[in-house]
């Protein structure tokens, strides 16, 4: 389900079936790596659309969490922990973070939710058809990951 009123209506009606929240993480920087962070955010937002389409009945795709690359690790950990606490206390059993920013890899172990890190692909030079195929493939691989997590949690 997307974070739009129509889908949230559906969520309210069928809450018992929705136990997963996905939070995309979008890095923002205005320094030297401005382009890199933009490409990461672009890739993750496109991927989150496809992922939502595949699993719309069981997960809520939250609006992305944007952060400055200059934030300290401690601040990021604290922020995410707040999100996590809120989500887990509101009935979500599984929380996933979706990102291309490798700096999350080092602090991953401090979160209860699963971190899905995918290196961003240079989508800017691809035509639409090819782009969709690639994203579809990525989602197919994530499918297994989600299924495993869901099965182990049951």
């Amino acid at each position, binding site marked *: 389900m997307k974070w739009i009123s129509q889908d949230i209506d559906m969520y309210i009606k069928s809450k018992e079936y929705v136990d997963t929240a996905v939070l995309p993480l979008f890095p923002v920087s205005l320094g030297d790596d401005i382009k890199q962070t933009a490409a990461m955010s672009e890739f993750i937002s496109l991927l989150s659309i496809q992922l939502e389409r*595949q699993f719309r009945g069981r997960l809520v795709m939250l609006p992305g969490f944007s952060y400055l690359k200059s934030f300290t690790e401690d601040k990021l950990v604290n922020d995410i922990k707040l999100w996590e606490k809120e989500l887990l206390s509101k009935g979500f059993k599984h929380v996933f973070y979706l990102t291309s920013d490798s700096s999350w890899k080092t602090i991953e172990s401090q979160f209860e939710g699963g971190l899905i890190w995918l290196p961003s692909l240079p989508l800017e030079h691809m035509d639409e058809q090819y782009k*969709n195929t690639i994203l579809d493939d990525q989602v197919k691989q994530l499918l297994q990951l989600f299924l495993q997590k869901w099965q182990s949690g049951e």
Partner: protein
Amino acid sequence: MSKNRVSRRQFLSYTLTGVGGFMAAGMLMPMVRFAIDPVLQAKAGGNYIPTPQKVADITEVPTRVDFTFEQQDAWYNSEETGTAWVYKDDKGEIVALSPVCKHLGCVVNWEGDKTKPEHFYCPCHGGLYTKDGTNVPGTPPIAPLDVYPYIEKDGYLHLGKAEPKKGA
């Protein structure tokens, strides 16, 4: 100077008729258009979208066919992708099923669960459908998968808008 001179009265009446005619036409045209609007409306429902699937290549095993089409949201055109599971049934007729689970809208996969062969499987809540799209009782979905109407054009499969299965 020509011989048949136009009198002032004639000149004025010609001009007025001319101008009045334009004004009347300007008012009547939109009215007529409004009145016969249903005839002029472009048919959106009858559009069949081409897919990259060759009709000759369709087998008895459901295959995933992805296609793109332009979607119009008010004034914004965006490229959307659609998916269908396509196969030939026992009678050799083509069946194109929508992959959207009738439970909460996840995407179903053919034989997505190894323990349930010959079924469409929804990974979200374990919904099952038989090959013809009928929902298996006891699993969450309450209706069969939607069916795409199709036509064959130049050897390629063209799909219409997915509709609920008939007779359900």
